[in-house]
């Protein structure tokens, strides 16, 4: 319990630091500090409202506290070009990114764990010797390039799958759930998920493989052997269960990292997610939107780091607080 509180406090401290960095970054950029929130594209009424809301005519330190207060209420300003509150714009695309991230991580981790365990079991076989460098090579490839190659083959060359977007034009659904479950959406999802999964499977695979190799030498496995249990039962019921713990932590960390790392894949497949939103906002200098998108990505990362930390200490009681820090 004390550990939980301590980590929570630490996480809040990190959030505060990131929020402050963000404030400074967007105020110190070229141009007047007003440019962070005001643009001629917004109506005069909107501009006056924002001027009031963010205290843009006050000294910088006062603006800082107003900014913190606004953040707590989810007030992030108005997008210059969409002329809508930033929070609304973010929440509209966020589910797309979450669906993409989680589906690809699940595919990657299920495959990675199984393949990793298999490779550990077949240690020093021809397959194992060829697989490790191959996995490393895939991890070395830029995600967007994997996406480009898959796109060229499966979409343009073979014409099996759509080349971008999350839905075909002209499709309407009663609810988000209906949309996510529609065949059209799933067809659009396949290539981006495959791209990300190819890239992401290396970590769980290599982790699982080395954990299995380590665990197979532990005393409890020897004990199971002495009891005369079958090889299958030893590998699955005893070794794999213990080798799985670090992989779970990696999964939690992976969610946080991927939400931001997806950026390039979202661009390749024109996936309407938070990463694509960020890139477009930066490219068009839509400061409030860029700031909001970055903040959301950072918050997910920090939150998942916290979750991974907690998982790690819950699953492995040997971890003392000192080692975590």
């Amino acid at each position, binding site marked *: 319990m004390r550990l939980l509180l301590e980590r929570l406090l*630490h996480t809040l*401290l*990190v959030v505060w*630091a*990131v929020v402050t*960095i963000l404030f400074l*970054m967007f105020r110190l*950029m*070229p141009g007047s500090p007003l440019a962070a929130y005001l643009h001629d594209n917004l109506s005069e009424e909107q501009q006056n409202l924002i001027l009031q809301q963010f205290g843009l005519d006050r000294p910088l330190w006062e603006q800082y506290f107003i900014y913190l207060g606004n953040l707590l209420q989810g007030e992030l300003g108005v997008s210059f070009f969409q002329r809508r509150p930033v929070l609304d714009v973010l929440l509209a695309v966020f589910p797309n990114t979450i669906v993409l991230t989680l589906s690809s991580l699940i595919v990657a981790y299920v495959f990675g764990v199984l393949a990793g365990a298999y490779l550990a079991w077949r240690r020093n076989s021809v397959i194992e010797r060829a697989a490790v*460098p191959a996995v*490393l*090579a895939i*991890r*070395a*490839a*830029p*995600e*967007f*390039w994997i996406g*480009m*190659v898959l*796109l*060229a083959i499966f979409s*343009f*060359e073979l014409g099996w799958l759509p*080349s971008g977007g999350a839905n075909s034009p002209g499709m309407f659904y009663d609810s988000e759930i209906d949309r996510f479950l529609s065949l059209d959406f799933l067809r659009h999802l396949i290539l981006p998920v495959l791209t990300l999964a190819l890239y992401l499977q290396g970590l769980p695979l290599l*982790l699982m493989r*080395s954990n299995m190799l380590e665990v197979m030498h532990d005393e409890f496995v020897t004990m199971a052997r002495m009891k005369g249990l079958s090889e299958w039962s030893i590998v699955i019921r005893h070794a794999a269960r213990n080798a799985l713990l*670090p992989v779970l932590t990696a999964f939690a960390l992976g969610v946080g*990292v991927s*939400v*931001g*790392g997806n*950026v*390039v894949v979202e*661009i*390749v497949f024109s996936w309407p997610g938070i*990463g694509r939103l*960020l*890139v477009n906002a*930066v*490219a068009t*200098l839509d400061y409030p939107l*860029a700031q909001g*998108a*970055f903040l959301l*990505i*950072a918050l997910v*990362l*920090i939150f998942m*780091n916290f979750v991974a930390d907690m998982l790690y200490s819950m699953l492995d009681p040997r971890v003392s607080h000192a080692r975590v*820090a």
Partner: protein
Amino acid sequence: MPASLEPATLPRPTPALWPRLVRAVGRAIARAAAQLRRDGFALAGVTIYTVFAVVALLADVLATHDPMEILFLPTGKLAANIRPGADFLLGTTNLGRDIYSQLIHGTRSALLVGLSAAVVVASLGTVVGLVSGYFGGRIDMVMMRFADVALSLPFLPFVIVLIGFLGASINIIIMAVALLLWPNTARVIRSQVLSLRERAYVEAARVTGASTWRIMFVHIAPNILPLSFLYGSIAIGWAILTEASVSFLGFGSANVVSWGYMLQDAFASQALSRGHFNWFIPPGLCIVLVVVAGFFISRGYEEIFFPKLRD
């Protein structure tokens, strides 16, 4: 301590800082070279690096055309979308630029970004790790909190925002990579220093009155140099991948031919739908080769120097 006392209390010769560091580096390289013969991974990695380094150095000789020049056929027609052949080894882009020459010149910017970032990451991480681990206490706490914050910034989005605002340049990419990657190096080095500073020879140096900085840089630093190299070699790959991603997103500098720029150019010019595999496969393969070489080398080195570190 008064300088006049030193010869009396310290009869042993005290070698200067730099020769010792240089010798430590030499020893590390010699050990690594010896290992190369045994480790196939590391050997492959070093071979790949060597080939790319030679290509980068000889880029002007190896390239058949100016990478950015718009080329014309003898008939006066624009040499656009030519298939690979004798005149254009890998064909040309839709604007009549030679792909092979771009690829060769891209090696140069990739190695430049990779090596500079590696040097900055490794030195920053080493110094912070040394100071943090050796002094401990409040300094350590502050530094490690900074590390936590740096690790909580989403990598690519941070680089994108920074470049979007400060303008595209290779220096900013290197700076951003260094800013976000030093904590990994610093944390590992810190924990190594924590154990080294309790060793008998460090205690001995302390008792004989060696200054704090001397202990840190003469007695401890040489022992963690292999770790710095290891993390430096990992940073090379990261920096090259980051530069490629940033260029692909269209935030790269306009007058530098890099592999990321080539991929962006191909993507934006519909090379995918036209099936111009000769345009976008080679740059991607080059990135894979350079980055995987870094992985191979760091794997091999981990096995020599830190058999227990591997996870």
